[in-house]
């Protein structure tokens, strides 16, 4: 019993760190949609900074701690928000993951570089922190022990972690439940567009979420460092990935569950380590627990998805900047590059063994990197387990060569097949998961490889690993570096050719089809599981093939050669150079292998004059510079699937286009049906004047323009390239009800969203009381009094009735008015709005507006799906609002109810107003004509 308690306390201390990290991750993920894989890196940077301030510069505990968590972390959070996360908000899941992987690589490298560069260059008198095994916490150091009851001991570091954990839990609870910032954050999570229509600026909540999230990471790093027991970025990343399991336990959205999950994980880990004696012969079993839980949790989350439908890919097709050139001209630069490469290798580097070694390593890494082109570049799925394929292939090849005397080439093939088999295993989650959950699942499987599979002595041959000698192949001795380089060149050419074939084939089309639209693929006879399995199997086989080549080049493979985290740095490098094309992978491979040497020792080439020689940065910090550059590059280029290559190609294209424009007066016209505007230059044209351009049709009421609270003039809008509204002109007058009627698909909801500012108008103006609001965002229009009650109930289902009212009525007295008016809402004030009936939800939408009437209210299908009696009550609310001077727009598909109270009526059909006039002019004949075409009863 004493032992159990003792273990539980130790486990709970680790667990409290997981809880801190999991809470911060969940908070920032739910508030911004970005799962920050660099969270462990931020915790590491904070811990390192605290260590240097406290231990290196001798600051005392309180100022050092406050400096880290109250100054450094908030500033870092703000900087990341503006530089990285806000621009990513509308990107694909894959881009978000790749960008945060870039940060994970870059941040610790920058921190290390500053510390160690400062020491070596400026002679700073601080420790480099590399060998620290027991960093001091924010309390006693060394830690003191206290006896609880029954001789159970708790040390001061553990006490600090517990207190911090409890304090953070309480602070988060207070923040989210009892402050308006917390309410707004939860509202944005629940329904982002509705929050904007209540005047909440999601840019602000996002900034706050990142500041709070970063501070939590900093606290976890500083307080947790003594328990984590090291100042290595890899360990901090590992802790974060374990905490990811707690986030998944919380369903990726519940902070309390994530918190409890973190504690549970810590305790479970410790207990398994002690009591799972049945598994004591399995190396690494203990460490595998969190990753098994992470994987199980992800699959559990996906359980109720069933058959998926309707997922729409909004990604525009990638632009081929060279499609104006003939094929030979497109390939010319690459042919020249290859020729130069080999000439250089054979002429200038002939006897430079070190550089030849670098190039050979680079080319064999390039083969591995080509596997990213297949799975992520073409398939659009982020796989974070590529290092595992490399390892399993190299181990398999090494084992059969050493133990069974296989020749090199068959061993290479067998290794690739082993990787392919593992690839099929890793693809199984992909059949259910996509985007972030899939990336996390591959990460979990990669770590399971690290801690379990590659610790298996049968496979890894102890610590020493397998020796893989460079063989003689078809009479060519690959021991010679130049022969090896030529051989690798041929291999890369062959794989590039295979990828080229794949792209042009039925399988290649299926890959893109599944990526662009799963529903359309399935209904076009293309099997989604088969396609995804094929992508992973092929990608894993290529990674494995490259893995055996890398191991051959190194001469040996051990279980420490590559780990999953190495794979993350690889991904960052490939993203930097361009993940969609083989050329990007090849450049990334060469750069990865050569960058450390270049930064370290510089370059001295026999053929260049000596003033071009450079001595490098000296050993030690070179790796950091490379990682920082690759990482930051990946952060910036994650949204650009072609990386650096695309940027140079784009610049060249711009130059060519300019030249052509000079040569010919006019550009060739686009074929009919192609939308002309380039994706990055939306054609927004706003007519200069408003009143003078109002067409006669709009002047149904003689002096409407003068009285109009809101005047729409010539509004065009739509989604992406699809225009839905083709020029809407409409005055909305205070104290009047304007009904907009029309069948499904007429553009009614688009009109509502355009007025509210959720959908930007591509042309035309919206003027509110003399102020042009066309350029204002939704939350700004809401603050000016233009409010939309959206279709399908304008409530936040996860917030309580009281909190829903609070979004519009911060004063308790105002809320009491609303309860007085609608007693049923008062009775249910503490229930989540999602549990109310449809009619009650519609009351909850309108109740706050009755207490504090807006200037303009647009109601989109307010009677949809409601019983006739309820509809009657809702309509009475609109009548009351009209009497109080609100300008009302009621949009309905069905004419009957709304016609009883409307003052003016407009019919909308296929994005145009087809009839407009006073209600008295509407009769049955007109309605039949509008709704059922020309057919008369």
């Amino acid at each position, binding site marked *: 019993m004493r032992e159990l308690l003792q273990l539980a306390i130790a486990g709970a201390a680790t667990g409290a760190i997981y809880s801190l990290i999991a809470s911060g991750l969940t908070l920032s993920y739910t508030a911004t949609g970005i799962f920050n894989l660099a969270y462990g890196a931020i915790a590491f940077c904070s811990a390192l900074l605290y260590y240097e301030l406290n231990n290196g510069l001798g600051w005392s505990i309180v100022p050092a701690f406050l400096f880290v968590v109250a100054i450094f972390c908030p500033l870092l959070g703000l900087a990341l928000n503006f530089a990285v996360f806000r621009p990513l908000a509308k990107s694909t899941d894959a881009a978000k993951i790749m960008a945060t992987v870039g940060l994970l690589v870059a941040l610790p490298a920058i921190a290390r570089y500053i510390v160690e560069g400062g020491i070596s260059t400026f002679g700073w008198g601080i420790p480099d922190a590399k060998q620290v095994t027991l960093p001091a916490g924010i309390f006693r150091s060394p830690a003191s022990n206290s006896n609880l009851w029954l001789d159970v001991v708790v040390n001061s570091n553990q006490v600090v972690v517990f207190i911090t954990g409890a304090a953070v839990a309480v602070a988060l609870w207070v923040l989210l439940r009892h402050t308006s910032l917390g309410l707004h954050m939860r509202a944005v999570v629940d329904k982002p567009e509705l929050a904007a229509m209540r005047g909440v600026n999601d840019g602000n909540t996002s900034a706050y979420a990142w500041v709070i999230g970063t501070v939590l990471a900093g606290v976890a790093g500083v307080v947790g460092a003594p328990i984590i027991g090291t100042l290595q970025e890899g360990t901090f990343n590992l802790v974060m990935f374990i905490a990811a399991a707690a986030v998944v336990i919380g369903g990726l959205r519940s902070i309390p569950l994530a918190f409890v999950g973190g504690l549970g994980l810590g305790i479970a880990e410790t207990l398994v380590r002690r009591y799972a004696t049945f598994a004591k012969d399995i190396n690494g079993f203990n460490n595998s627990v969190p990753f098994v839980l992470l994987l199980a949790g992800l699959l559990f989350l996906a359980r109720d998805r069933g*058959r998926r439908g309707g997922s729409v890919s909004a990604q525009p097709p990638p632009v081929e900047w060279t499609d104006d050139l003939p094929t030979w001209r497109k390939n010319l630069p690459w042919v020249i590059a290859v020729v130069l490469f080999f000439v250089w290798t054979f002429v200038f580097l002939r006897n430079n063994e070190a550089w030849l070694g670098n190039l050979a390593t680079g080319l064999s890494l390039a083969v591995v990197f080509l596997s990213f082109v297949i799975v992520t570049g073409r398939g659009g799925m982020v796989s974070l387990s590529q290092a595992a394929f490399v390892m399993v292939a190299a181990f398999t090849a090494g084992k059969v060569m050493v133990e069974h005397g296989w020749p090199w080439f068959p061993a290479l093939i067998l290794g690739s097949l082993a990787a392919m088999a593992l690839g099929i295993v890793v693809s199984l989650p992909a059949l259910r998961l996509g985007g972030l959950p899939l990336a996390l699942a591959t990460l979990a499987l990669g770590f399971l490889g690290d801690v379990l599979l590659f610790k298996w002595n049968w496979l890894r041959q102890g610590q020493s690993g397998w020796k893989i000698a460079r063989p003689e192949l078809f009479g060519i001795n690959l021991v010679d570096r130049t022969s090896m380089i030529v051989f690798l060149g041929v291999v890369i050419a062959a794989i590039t050719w295979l990828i080229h074939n794949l792209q042009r084939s039925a*399988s290649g089309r299926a890959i893109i089809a599944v990526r662009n639209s799963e529903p359309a693929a*399935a209904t076009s006879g293309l099997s989604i599981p088969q396609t995804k399995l094929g992508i992973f199997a*092929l990608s894993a086989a290529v990674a494995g093939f490259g893995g055996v080549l890398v191991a051959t080049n190194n001469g040996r493979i051990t279980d420490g050669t590559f780990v999953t985290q190495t794979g993350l740095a690889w991904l960052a490098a490939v993203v930097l150079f361009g993940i969609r094309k083989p050329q990007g992978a090849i450049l990334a491979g060469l750069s990865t292998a050569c960058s450390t040497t270049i930064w370290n020792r510089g370059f001295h080439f026999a053929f260049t004059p000596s003033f071009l020689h450079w001595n490098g940065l000296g050993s030690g910090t070179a790796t950091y510079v490379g990682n920082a550059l690759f990482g930051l590059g990946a952060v910036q280029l994650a949204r650009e699937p072609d990386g650096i290559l695309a940027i140079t190609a784009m610049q060249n294209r711009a130059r060519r286009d300019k030249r052509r424009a000079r040569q010919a007066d006019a550009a060739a016209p686009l074929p009919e*049906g192609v939308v002309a505007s380039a994706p990055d230059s939306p054609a927004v044209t706003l007519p200069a004047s408003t009143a003078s351009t109002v067409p006669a049709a709009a002047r149904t009421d003689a002096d409407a323009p003068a009285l109009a609270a809101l005047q729409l003039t010539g509004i065009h809008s739509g989604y992406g390239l699809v225009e839905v509204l083709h020029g809407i002109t409409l005055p909305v007058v205070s104290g009047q009800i304007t009904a907009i009627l029309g069948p499904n698909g007429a553009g009614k909801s688009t009109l509502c969203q355009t007025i509210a500012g959720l959908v930007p108008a591509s042309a035309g103006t919206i003027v509110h009381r003399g102020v042009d609001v066309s350029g204002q965002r939704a939350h700004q229009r809401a603050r000016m009094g233009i409010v939309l009650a959206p279709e399908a109930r304008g409530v936040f289902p996860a917030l309580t009735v009281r909190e829903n009212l609070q979004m519009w009525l911060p004063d308790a007295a105002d809320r009491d008015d609303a309860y007085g008016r609608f007693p049923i809402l008062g009775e249910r004030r503490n229930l989540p709005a999602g549990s109310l009936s449809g009619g009650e939800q519609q009351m909850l939408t309108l109740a706050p507006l009755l207490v504090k009437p807006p200037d303009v209210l647009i109601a989109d299908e307010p009677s949809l799906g409601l019983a006739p009696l309820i509809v009657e009550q809702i309509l009475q609310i609109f009548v009351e609002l009209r009497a109080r001077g609100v300008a009302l727009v009621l949009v309905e598909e069905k004419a009957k109810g709304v016609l009883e109270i409307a003052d003016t009526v407009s019919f909308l059909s296929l994005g145009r107003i087809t009839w407009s006039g006073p209600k008295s002019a509407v009769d049955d004949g007109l309605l039949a004509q509008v709704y059922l075409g020309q057919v008369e009863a």
Partner: protein
Amino acid sequence: MEERLSTSAALVHVDGVTVRFGGVVAVNAASLSVPPGEIRGLIGPNGAGKTTLFDTITGMRLPTSGRVIYDGTDITDRSAVWRSRNGMRRTFQRQQPFGWLSVEDNVLAALDYRGGGGGIVADVLALPSRRRRERERRAKAQAAVARCGLTSLSGEAAGRLSIGKVRLLELARAIVDDPKVLLLDEPTSGLEEAEAEKFGEIVSEVRHETGCAVLLVEHDVPFVMGLCDRITVLNLGEVIAEGTPAEVSSNDLVRAAYLG
């Protein structure tokens, strides 16, 4: 499962299908039968359950209860892929082009399941037999592209087409494999009148040539009245009327459902 169900001569027979999401009944015990060669319209106001019924027929959603019988076989449990490979093809209300592929490759992809042996391995190695069969399929895809009037755009990425051209592209993709049933979900929404007319012409041509059945959801009532042989009206998940266009448009229930 394979036994022939001789309950009717219908090609597609929806038998008492109910679909629930949580507590909401989207489709309630709906039944309808479409014989080969008929163009059937499916109309109804917002939220009537039309698209849900389409999803159930094409295998994208399992019904809570009821059966879907296709060509005499109960296919309620068959996958969407099986159905599409066996002559059931559809278009989407929310457009679903393969945006990165060219127009021609979009249509070709819908035939690619007939690629022949070897799969991805044969593709990667560019085996000649596989390439030859692809050339045959490509000729067929080009014919479908031409029929829909898209030949001049066949090399253009589908993601850069206008809404009207994507509707035609989805039609080409749906007819290229000579389907027995063609399901069109709001094919003319967002189209100009001339484009809608052209669309209707292609659909009736295909029907005359191949004798396929067509099931279409549409809000443009004049278009439906002009094109369809018979019309089924859904309201709040239930079939409330069925008949010729003239019968349906004079039906009081239908007028009530539309006018509120």
